[in-house]
């Protein structure tokens, strides 16, 4: 039977995870192993296109229900709320100023696509189905935390003129709503939805068969990226490092609760937990460079990539899955 340990081990010996570890080791040993810039971008593009398209086809099979709507709403609200919690923890446990604390909290409110994709691969391994609209939920969780993060950080801005300039510059809005990640995700989702199963037969040889392989390459790069960030954690205080570990747990717990409440499948609950637990390192930082240039990304990035991302990939995902199943069976039987 699937004890937590079994699940965790099975996860650790899956190719994507092992390639992630390989990448980390390579980075630590200062190997010259490197993923060419172009390939990195291509792989993200591929993952988003594939995951979006699959989700769209999935959606085209089920009809829009009330659950869907509540789910989408919940996702947006959760991601908007999380930064306030994160901010509280940081301010309580560290001496970080409002600006950087707000910036970090925005990262943790938002999501990491790769963690989500790893989650879907993990669920596949356990033949666990999930709702297609979870990809839409993911997309809806990218932007809101930026707003709450900014609201929190703004308190720290000394210059009045900076504090009172409009929260959303057109630049920020474009960054957030027309950003390429969202664009390719929603676009592929829509295309998958429109072309449905016929489209899937056309695309299966591209987004189906080689998917795990591409994911492995991508995880290899993530390992390299994460491994290189570890260095920078040296200078961080313990409280901040710890935050990188427990914040995902906090997020996941909320995600699981919410998921159970709105009646997602076990797979769906797991993915929502993963979304809440994961932290952004692409969309949010890019947005903050414009909306909050005073924030120091060399704190948030190493924390997200060096601590939280590996934690979720290596231990978090199986843990969240286990908890989701548990909660689910409780409800069922209860």
């Amino acid at each position, binding site marked *: 039977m699937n004890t937590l340990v079994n699940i965790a081990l099975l996860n650790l010996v899956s190719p994507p995870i092992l390639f992630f570890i390989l990448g980390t080791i390579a980075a630590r040993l200062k190997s010259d192993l490197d993923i060419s810039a172009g390939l*990195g971008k291509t792989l993200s593009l591929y993952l988003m296109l594939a995951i979006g398209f699959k989700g769209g086809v999935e959606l085209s099979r089920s009809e829009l229900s009330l659950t869907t709507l509540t789910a989408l709403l919940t996702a947006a609200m959760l991601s908007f709320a999380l930064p306030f919690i994160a901010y509280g923890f940081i301010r309580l446990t560290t001496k970080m100023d409002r600006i950087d604390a707000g910036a970090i909290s925005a990262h943790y409110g938002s999501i990491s696509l790769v963690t989500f994709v790893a989650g879907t691969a993990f669920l596949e391994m356990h033949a666990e189905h999930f709702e297609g609209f979870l990809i839409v939920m993911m997309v809806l969780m990218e932007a809101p935390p930026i707003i709450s993060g900014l609201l929190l950080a703004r308190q720290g801005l000394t210059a009045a003129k900076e504090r009172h300039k409009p929260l959303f510059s057109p630049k920020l809005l474009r960054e957030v709503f027309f950003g390429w990640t969202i664009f390719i995700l929603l676009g592929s989702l829509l295309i998958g939805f429109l072309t449905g199963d016929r489209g899937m037969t056309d695309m299966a040889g591209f987004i189906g068969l080689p998917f795990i392989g591409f994911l492995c390459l991508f995880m290899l790069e*993530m390992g*390299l*990226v994460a491994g290189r960030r570890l260095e920078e954690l040296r200078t961080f205080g313990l409280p901040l490092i710890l935050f990188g570990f427990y914040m995902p747990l906090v997020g996941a717990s909320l995600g699981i609760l919410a998921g159970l409440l709105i009646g997602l499948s076990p797979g769906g609950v797991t993915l929502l937990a993963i979304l809440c637990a994961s932290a952004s390192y692409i969309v949010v*930082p*890019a947005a903050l460079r414009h909306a909050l240039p005073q924030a120091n990304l060399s704190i948030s990035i190493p924390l997200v990539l060096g601590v939280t991302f590996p934690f979720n990939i290596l231990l978090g995902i199986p843990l969240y899955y286990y908890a989701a199943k548990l909660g689910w069976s409780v409800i069922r039987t209860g």
Partner: protein
Amino acid sequence: MERKTIKKVVIIAELAIKEEILHIINEMKAPGYTLYEVRGMGEKGVRDFETTQLEYFKNIKFEILVDAELAERIVAAVVDNYFKDYAVIAYLEEVQILRQEKFRPRQN
């Protein structure tokens, strides 16, 4: 051939403000620019990675050949708006050109 001497404005900055700098260049009707993708290190830390994952660690470099007067204004605009919060440096060099008219501010 007798040469004229004009200024080359050099701006090295984080990718995040590329559009902002382009905006300045267009606003001030600079006759042209040349753009490089570079990596580097400076006050704001190391920005020298080959991966694309972390766009905000990328650097770009602008070179703008213009007359001294416009050169000063471009540098001033960059310094005033971006030196505080962004990874950016700016400096001037002297270059000898052939046909000065090519490097006059655009009229349109």
